[in-house]
Every structure is written in C-alpha cells, then in structure tokens.
C-alpha cells in the first residue's frame, strides 16, 4: 500500500464532518436554488441504488444468492419492514440459497 491509512481516515472523516456540520452551523435560512435543492434531494437514492446493483451479486459467493437477496429485500422494504428485518432477511436468503446450490 502506497498511501498512509491514517491520512485516508483523516480525509474521509474531514469531508464527512464538514458535510454534516457546516450546513447545520452556517445555514440559518432555507436554500433557495431549485436545481441545487432538487439535485441534493435525488442524490441519496441514486447513489445508493448505483452502489447496490450489480455490486450485491459480487458480494456473495453465488451471484444468484445476491440477486435473490436484492429482490426479497426490495419486497420487504416495499412493505415497510424495519431496517433490522430487511437486513436480516437478505442475509438469510443468501445463506439459504448458497446452502442449496453450492
């Protein structure tokens, strides 16, 4: 590894803390720019979706297990189940599928 892990940690922490702390301390009025507000509104959903698929199929030993976990997770989250239940169900699907086909 050519880079220092503590500089990596410093960089990511500084960026994250600045993102979280600067607006809440500096902004006393609502953001007016409509494009910026819309962009910031959509970013979380887009970036999480991009990171979830197809990466979930590479995270498991069998890509089919990851794919099925994605489908089951979407179904349960759609029904409004809690974070813990959705995450646990995804894990159990992968465990079950890999038990059967590997």
């Amino acid at each position, binding site marked *: 590894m050519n880079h220092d892990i503590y500089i990596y940690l410093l960089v990511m922490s500084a960026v994250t803390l600045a993102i979280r*702390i600067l607006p*809440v301390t500096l902004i006393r009025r609502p953001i007016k720019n409509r494009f910026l507000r819309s962009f*910031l509104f959509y970013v979380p959903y887009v*970036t999480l979706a991009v990171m979830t698929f197809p990466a979930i199929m590479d995270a498991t030993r069998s890509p089919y297990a990851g794919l099925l976990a994605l489908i089951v997770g979407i179904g349960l*989250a759609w029904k409004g189940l809690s974070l813990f239940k959705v995450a646990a169900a*995804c894990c159990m699907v*992968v465990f079950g599928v890999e038990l059967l086909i590997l």
Partner: protein
Amino acid sequence: MTLTTTSAPKRAPFMEGIRDGTPIALGYLVVAFTLGIAARNAGLTAFEGFLASFFNNASAGEYAAFTIIAADAPYLELAIMTLVANARYLLMSCVVSQKFAPDTNILHRVLVGFDITDEIFGITIARKGPLNPYYNYGAMSLALPGWSVGTALGVMAGNLLPEAAVSALSVALFGMFIWVIIPPARDNRIIGALVAISFIASFACAHLPVISDLSGGTRTIILTVAIAAIGAILHPIKDHA
C-alpha cells in the same frame, strides 16, 4: 463555553432519545459488523475501523471509502467519493438547521451535526417543535458506540466466521441501502424511476467496454452526478417538498 443557552428540558428528552435510539443502535451493530468485514478486506485494523466509523457514521460513505482504500487510490479520489456518497447528509444538515431554535448555541449545532445519519435524521425530523439537542444526544449515546464498536468487531471476527456466514452477512449492508431507498421509491414515482434507471445504468456500466475499466468508485460518482442532475433538470422538486 456553556452548553446551557436554552431553558428547554434536558433529562426527559435525553431518555426519549435513548428509547428511540435503542433499535437503531441494535441495527447498527449488526450492519456495522458487515461493514467491518469490508474494512478488513481493505486492510484496516480493528482500531482503524473503529476510528473510521466513529468519525464517519455512514454506511454507504464508508463502504465506498473502503473500496477506494482497498484500491490504494489517490486521496483526492477518496475525498470526492466521500463527498458524493455522503452528499445526502449535506441536505439533511440543511434541513436540521431549520429545526433549531434560532438562539441555539453553536456547540449544540456542531454536536448534533456530528451524528446526522439517515436514521437519526428520521427520528429528529419526526419530533414536533424546535429541535432539543439532548434528544439527539440520547440517541447518539447508543447509536455511535453501536456503529463504531460493531465495525471493530467485524474487523476482528470477520475472519473467524465460516465462509458461508461471511457471504450471508455481507449483504446486510445492501439490505440497509435497500431499506433506505425503496419506501421513498414506492411513494414518489420520480425517485422510483431514478432508482430503476440507476440499477440499469449501473449494471450496464459494469459490463460496457471502456467504462467497465474505470474503478467502481469513479463509476458511482459519474452515474450519481449524471442521473441526479438529469432528475433535477427534468423534475425539479416543488417548493416546500
């Protein structure tokens, strides 16, 4: 500097924060454990994983950061990736800034801002009236250790678990992402369409020639900025949305 600039109660909101923070902390402990496995794969020690999680408190942001660290990529790429993956906290922090009573001490704002996560943001916004920082401190007092200790445990115990268990646990983090994006995608057709487009575009870019040679983090940045910008241009949110 004193923390008491407001006459609002402290003890009762703190206990309510602990009550609401308990299920969050338990969920964090499990999900952070799998984040610890990702940290371990990136070469982090348990202590380094603890530090990363204590100061970042971000599932997607940390996961993305660990993939960049694993690739031994430049510091700038890590900074940009962290910025993009955590950009939603910028918006949440803006929203939380509107919840504070105007006379709130800046130290309270800094401390509350320190731990604006998806879940703590959710319970903060769900409360009526001006934000009482002691409610957030109650929730943070469990959520923060749950997340950072869970990550350290994942780094330490990730290699002790059988392969089947690691494979199963590694999707818990994706389960959390799914849990964040799907209910809004169900209730808002624009978000739903953007999520579907993101899935398709991400899949395509992972397989297209040239583009698939870029790192996963770089593809995530490009796709996020492009798709969210297109969404913002075609369907700007209504005022007070």
